[in-house]
């Protein structure tokens, strides 16, 4: 709703508890399925052999190769937009040790 001349009522009623669980459900389900699949043998086809991690070891292939730049961008967009993003930064790389 952009503007509402006769807006006197509260925002449209929507069961908050049910709402977010319903919306998060598919996402959590997808992640759970992916996690189970990833850790089971079925996902052994996805990936690269340990000696084939050459390209993955490159700097630009890391999940967050320029953390300072990421932080600067997050700060700018947080100041100018309503969203804030939570990203995870673990994984990838040469897989050594």
């Amino acid at each position, binding site marked *: 709703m952009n503007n509402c001349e006769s807006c006197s009522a509260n925002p449209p009623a929507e069961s908050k508890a049910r709402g977010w669980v319903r919306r998060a459900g598919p996402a959590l389900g997808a992640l759970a399925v992916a996690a189970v699949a990833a850790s089971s043998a079925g996902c052994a086809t996805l990936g690269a052999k340990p*000696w084939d991690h050459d390209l993955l*070891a490159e700097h630009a292939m890391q999940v967050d190769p320029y953390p300072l730049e990421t932080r600067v961008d997050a700060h700018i967009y947080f100041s100018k937009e309503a969203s804030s993003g939570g990203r995870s930064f673990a994984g990838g790389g040469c897989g*050594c*040790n």
Partner: protein
Amino acid sequence: MFRKEKTLKISPALAATLMICCACARATEFDLSQYRGKVVYLDFWASWCGPCKQSFPWLAGIARSYASKDLVVVAVNVDKDRSRAEQFLNDYPAGFPVLYDPAGEIATAYKVTGMPTAVLIDRVGHVRFQHSGFLPKNEGEYDEQLRILLGESAR
């Protein structure tokens, strides 16, 4: 990174197979038979592998110290780009033979599960220890394993 030692005891069947292969004179097969009677430290490495930069000075050291006791260090490089491997060798001189395995066939044969991987083969050709990863703080343990194998006689 902390790493638990994984010592792989090869089953007699697999050991026999490796021995058979080692006895094989076919050029398409990776041939360790020339080192029968010596202890072989087979090290799988790559230019892009960070821990390899720490392992190489140590490998050069043991190759030097234990050569008289019949230790042979053979480094198997898995780089797809040979020039990268050669650049690494300029910065971290080896002092031991280097084999090139860009297609990963030797790595596959030895079931390499991580980088780097060390395969310790005794004087009779059995794989006695195999560990993936290299940690300077575990150099004592690696050394101990070598002394065990070097102390054995070639039956």
